[in-house]
């Protein structure tokens, strides 16, 4: 490629895919590293075990404080996908067992695959009746449709699940209003808040949600650890049976060093959220404005105002997102088409399709997401590269 660097040379990377994962906070690395050489199973009764257990419990309290829930409401998992699966399956089974009439699960049509695929499975294997409530062209849940669906037969609803902020287009859902629809009927509400924690204010107790998923690696913590915040009055059928850890809700030896790193990251993310959001939103707005100057017929997807601060999801008509991604990658600019891969082949985004984009529209998009380590130089680099990349990508015939 004429405008690509020689293989073997390292191009400074411009990382614009923070929604996929983000660098670990140095303090989180330190917290984790400090404990990696320790020995002691947090479940053991001796001093070493108790030492490890103490780190876990202090981490639990830190997270509980940051998100305003009780420590006992924090269930550690291996990450967001496990927490989503635990919430959906566990709540469905528990609610259904308590009353067999409860077969319906209501979710938005733009949930992450960790929710949608779990719901597909519940529908196929556990006779759940899954209803995906549609969203408008900006990705905002249709509250009237949700209300109508609930009120049609509230006694048949096992749970409601709506993600707090969408990972692809960034749209933030009206969580308070969603809770207001479900709560009068005592229907538990779960939310996948994996993208929201640290980006927008998330307060478990005041939000009124019953279950909330968060994960370490999206907010500066390590991979492999996450949590389900679960209102302690709720019963849940576990996914993992075994040693009875996490009050029998989630068996398995706790990854104490990872949990320490996780807690450090959560605390920092929540504490710095207001300044972070302001700084990153300014960078994002600058990115969007300048990219649209270079590519006038590009457009922003999602709600322009009520969206995650670091998210810029843009459509580039006449191009395929994966060609653009390749061209930018060759110049060291890393972003995402925002959609899941099936066998390594990008699929048209189900989120965009649910918002009413046609297939072509669903394929011509790129997601740029900024994070804690993003700078103005990152935006400059993208703005410089995007024009030529779009020009070239438009030459690729479908």
């Amino acid at each position: 490629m004429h405008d690509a660097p020689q293989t073997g040379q390292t191009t400074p990377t411009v990382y614009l895919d923070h929604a996929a994962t983000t660098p670990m906070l140095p303090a989180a690395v330190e917290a984790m590293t400090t404990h990696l050489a320790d020995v002691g199973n947090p479940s053991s009764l001796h001093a070493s075990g108790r030492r490890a257990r103490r780190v876990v419990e202090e981490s639990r309290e830190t997270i509980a404080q940051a998100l305003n829930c009780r420590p006992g409401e924090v269930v550690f998992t291996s990450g967001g996908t496990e927490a989503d699966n635990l919430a959906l399956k566990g709540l469905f089974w528990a609610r259904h067992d308590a009353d067999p009439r409860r077969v319906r699960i209501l979710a938005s049509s733009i949930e992450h695959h960790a929710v949608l695929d779990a719901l597909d499975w519940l529908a196929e294997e556990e006779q759940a009746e899954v209803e995906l409530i549609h969203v408008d062209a900006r990705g905002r849940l249709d509250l009237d449709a949700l209300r109508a669906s609930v009120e049609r037969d509230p006694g048949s609803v096992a749970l409601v699940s709506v993600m707090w902020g969408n990972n692809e287009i960034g749209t933030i859902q009206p969580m308070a209003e969603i809770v207001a629809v479900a709560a009068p009927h005592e229907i538990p509400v779960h939310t996948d808040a994996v993208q929201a924690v640290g980006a927008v204010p998330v307060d478990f107790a005041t939000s009124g949600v019953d279950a909330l998923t968060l994960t370490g690696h999206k907010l500066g913590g390590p991979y492999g650890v996450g949590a389900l915040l679960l209102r302690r009055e709720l019963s849940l059928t576990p996914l993992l049976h075994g040693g009875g850890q996490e009050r029998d809700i989630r068996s398995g030896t706790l990854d104490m060093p990872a949990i320490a790193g996780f807690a450090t990251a959560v605390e920092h993310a929540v504490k710095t959220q207001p300044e972070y959001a302001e700084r990153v939103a300014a960078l994002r707005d600058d990115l969007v404005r300048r990219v649209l100057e270079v590519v006038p017929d590009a457009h922003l997807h999602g709600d322009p105002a009520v969206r995650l601060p670091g998210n810029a999801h843009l459509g580039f008509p006449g191009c395929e997102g994966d060609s653009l991604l390749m061209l930018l990658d060759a110049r060291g600019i890393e972003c995402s088409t925002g959609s899941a891969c099936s066998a390594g082949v990008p699929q048209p985004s189900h989120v965009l399709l649910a918002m009413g984009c046609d297939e072509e529209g669903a394929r011509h998009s790129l997601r740029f997401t900024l994070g804690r380590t993003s700078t103005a130089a990152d935006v400059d680099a993208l703005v410089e590269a995007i024009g030529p990349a779009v020009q070239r990508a438009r030459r690729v015939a479908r």
Partner: protein
Amino acid sequence: MSGGVDSAVAAARAVEAGHDVTGIHLALSRNPASYRSGARGCCTIEDANDARRAADVIGIPFYVWDLSERFHDDVVEDFMAEYAAGRTPNPCLRCNEKIKFAAVLDRATALGFDAVATGHYARVLTAPDGTAELHRAVDPGKDQSYVLGVLTQDQLTHSLFPLGDTSKPQVRAEAAARGLLVADKPDSHDICFVADGDNAGWLRQKLGDRAPNHEGAIVDGESGAELGRHDGTFGFTIGQRRGLRLGVPAPDGKPRYVLDIEPVSGTVTVGPRDALTVDQITADRPRWCGIAPTRPVEGTVQLRAHGREHRARVVVSTGSTGEERVEIELLDPAQGIAPGQAAVVYEGTRVVGSATIVATARTGVPA
């Protein structure tokens, strides 16, 4: 990068030669999960992972390009249509012609690349006049110039075959030396989109009602007598001996072979082996690696992948409506040659071009 050892080593060599290389795995199946177990074909998810790992080891970017729709339309549909018409296609040639060195090359060129490199065993040499020539590989047992005989000059000038000068055992040794885990991976032999190599079963399932005849008669080539019935012409190919299930032996006690397949009536004609012998072949829709021959070619032809070479005299003419016609006179007669197969013409090791066989004949025998 298919996930096999050849394309992995080819990629490594291209990097070593100083090229700026990007590894691409082609997702050609519309259902990659389906060919997971035991297939000797290609391009399951595991193959994609093997290709990805090889790219990691080599140190090049890696992407998967989904060409499954184009592949289905240009290669799989063509395969089915040819069989339904009673012909015997070679989908690998069609894939090279339409996908690997067309759709892929076009996309690559648009994105700013200069060439497509593959692990095919063949060589591209530059003639004194500067044109690109396609030649057989140095390892005759692995030579794949036959399936590349469909490439035009333009395609050849944008192709790279780094393995053409190496033998297969050397390639495997090199893969191992380079730390490529695919060094010991078995070669794929079957058609990539037919799991477990059961072409007839696949066709039966896919063609279903589309085949003009579900069943028909098997008749004797000499007498015209009906010897039996069959349940689909696509289960047969010219020169086939097995699977005839005739029950009644031939008068001379020798095996019978499929001589002809007529798909409209569903008639399959059988006869003795020497009735399969042909020494004249008519082919059309030629594709020339350089310029079309203006004089008769005294060279050789190869009529199947890994088939033998037949000395031949090849004459190219232009028909009344402008279509090119290739007449091949075989000095070394051939047997079991079916319409739809490719005839690839060579002058020494150089590929002149290829054409699709439409008819065969034997001197002195009426058609």
